[in-house]
């Protein structure tokens, strides 16, 4: 009997482990992942290569069988169900379009396997091609299309089956930056339009932050943090998450009475004593020539590098203990470059923007 899941989640993984035997040694690609993806949610698996995100997705699709644990789709145990009998579809990193078939036949492939009536196939494929803006290119072969168009064919081919969830394996990896950004918004629009659960695998934190309702940040086969984009960015659960998402500045040392001293500076770490590490987002730091007043974390340093980046400047500031801190400063109408290479400056930020990891 299929055991019912705890929630009515679209996808549920429970203590899922994947082991490989490589050169006689057991390697754990996924070391125990438990997560639930809600109905209609845009869910991202984010992490560096080798973190187990793709393996996790392939276990949801059915291409890999978990060594331990349970995979459920809408509460139904599908752990040992082959991919062709699972109601999820995947968009492959290489698109995997069938080269010997036209765009139309590629998109109709899944419906034909399910012996859908001809009339319905015609209607649904037509509708789907309209959604992905490929009407008029039905007879083309995949290789006659641009990268972005191929990507949309792959999307249509999966979505036309109205799966319970759509799995996307770094689908924008092969596109150039401009197209990638356009496709991010496009994907989000299509997801809202069809209302299907999306599980999105990526190593690109911007992509994950832009599109996701929730993100699972993975490292070494484990989920480090599972939360919404804002929470992941503003209050990372581990130093790894802090470092992986956005640019992070790390300061470490021994704190006494809630204060970490760096040179002449002081970093406020309320309720912490002993070994601490502090991370601050570059855009939260204010750069000034004079020592600022107020109840702030204040650290002196020397400007090591200034990079003009259009909408903002990026400063690299060396601290007394050798740490390098990145500071972003908006190029608003009233701001000019306030410091140059070699200048002594003060960095300051509000205590709430420090993210402290103590011992």
């Amino acid at each position, binding site marked *: 009997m299929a055991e019912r899941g705890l929630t009515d989640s679209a996808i549920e993984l429970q203590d899922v482990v994947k082991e490989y035997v490589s050169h006689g040694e057991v390697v754990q690609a996924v070391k125990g992942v438990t997560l639930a993806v809600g109905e209609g949610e845009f869910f991202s698996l984010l992490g560096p290569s080798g973190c187990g995100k793709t393996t996790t997705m392939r276990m949801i699709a*059915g291409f890999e069988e978990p060594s331990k644990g349970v995979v459920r789709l809408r509460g139904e145990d599908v752990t040992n169900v082959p991919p*062709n009998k699972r109601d999820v579809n*995947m968009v492959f990193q290489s698109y995997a379009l*069938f080269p010997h078939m036209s765009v139309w036949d590629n998109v109709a*492939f899944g419906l034909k*396997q399910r012996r859908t009536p001809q009339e319905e196939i015609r209607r649904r494929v037509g509708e789907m091609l309209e959604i992905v803006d490929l009407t008029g290119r039905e007879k083309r*072969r995949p290789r006659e299309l641009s990268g972005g168009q191929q990507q949309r064919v792959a999307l249509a081919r999966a979505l036309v089956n109205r799966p319970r969830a759509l799995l996307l394996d770094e689908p924008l990896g092969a596109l150039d930056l401009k197209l990638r950004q356009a496709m991010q918004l496009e994907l989000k629009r299509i997801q809202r339009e069809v209302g299907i659960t999306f599980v999105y695998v990526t190593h690109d934190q911007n992509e994950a932050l832009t599109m996701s309702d929730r993100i699972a940040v993975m490292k070494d086969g484990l989920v480090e943090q599972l939360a919404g984009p804002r929470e992941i960015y503003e209050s990372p659960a581990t130093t790894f998450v802090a470092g992986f998402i956005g640019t992070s500045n790390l300061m470490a040392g021994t704190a006494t009475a809630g204060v970490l001293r760096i040179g002449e500076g002081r970093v406020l770490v309320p309720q912490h004593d002993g070994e601490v590490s502090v991370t601050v987002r570059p855009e939260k730091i204010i750069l000034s020539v004079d020592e600022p007043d107020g109840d702030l974390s204040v650290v002196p340093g020397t400007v090591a590098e200034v990079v003009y980046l259009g909408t903002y400047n990026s400063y690299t500031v060396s601290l007394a203990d050798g740490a390098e801190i990145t500071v972003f400063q908006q190029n608003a109408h009233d701001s000019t470059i306030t410091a140059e290479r070699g200048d002594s400056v003060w960095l300051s930020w509000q205590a709430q923007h420090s993210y402290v990891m103590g011992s």
Partner: protein
Amino acid sequence: MRRGRLGDRLLHGYTWLVIAWLSSPIAVMILFGFNDTPSKSNTSWHGFTLKWYAQLFAIPDLTDALWNSVLIALVSTAITVVIGTMLGLALGRHRFRGQGTTNFLVFAAISTPELVMGASLLSLFVSANLPRDRITITIAHVLFSLSFVTVTVRARVVTLDPSLEEAAKDLGAGPWATFRQVTLPSILPGVLAGAMLAFALSIDDYVVTSFVNGSTLTFPLWIVGSVKTGIPPQVNVMGTLIFGIGVLIAIANAVAARRRAHT
């Protein structure tokens, strides 16, 4: 400049010389199929005639031998293509126990001298008490052409994106539907090339066949047997027809490949 032009001319001349050298035996074969020779020997030109085309099947033994060859080539090609495609797919796609050994055997079958293969097949058939006939010839032909089909298919399989088959399965196709609708069309050029190779190897094999034929004669065996008494012009005509069919298949394949590349 002058020297370059001279070099070009020399290269042109040399190229045509090589082409003429390579095609002269074929030209002679075709030409002597039209030779109005009065005797059994067909070695000197006696004027043009089409009568050998009209009397193509006038020598019953030769006709039997030709049909034997065609039948054996068709059957052995069909068997070879099926087994070779499966082998090529397995070797190109999967990792399995005994893979290294299989790869070695495929290579060994290509590099074994035909005389050795023929002699060992004969002793195998004799000790297995199999009567030597068209069946043993077919078995032998499958054996020596299998490796060529395997290698051609494997070469095609390794260039194939493995996620194509995963995509088919993901879209609801079972293993057989995946093979028929996605895998086979993708490796078809390799399978066809392998089939043509197997057919060509089979239809003109002499060495291995001469060991395992028993009393059955194939086209090449009949020709060698009639060398002493004189090769009749019908042989030239049959050779011309086989060559013509081969050329047609090659052209059709080239056209199909070009169409595949353009659509």
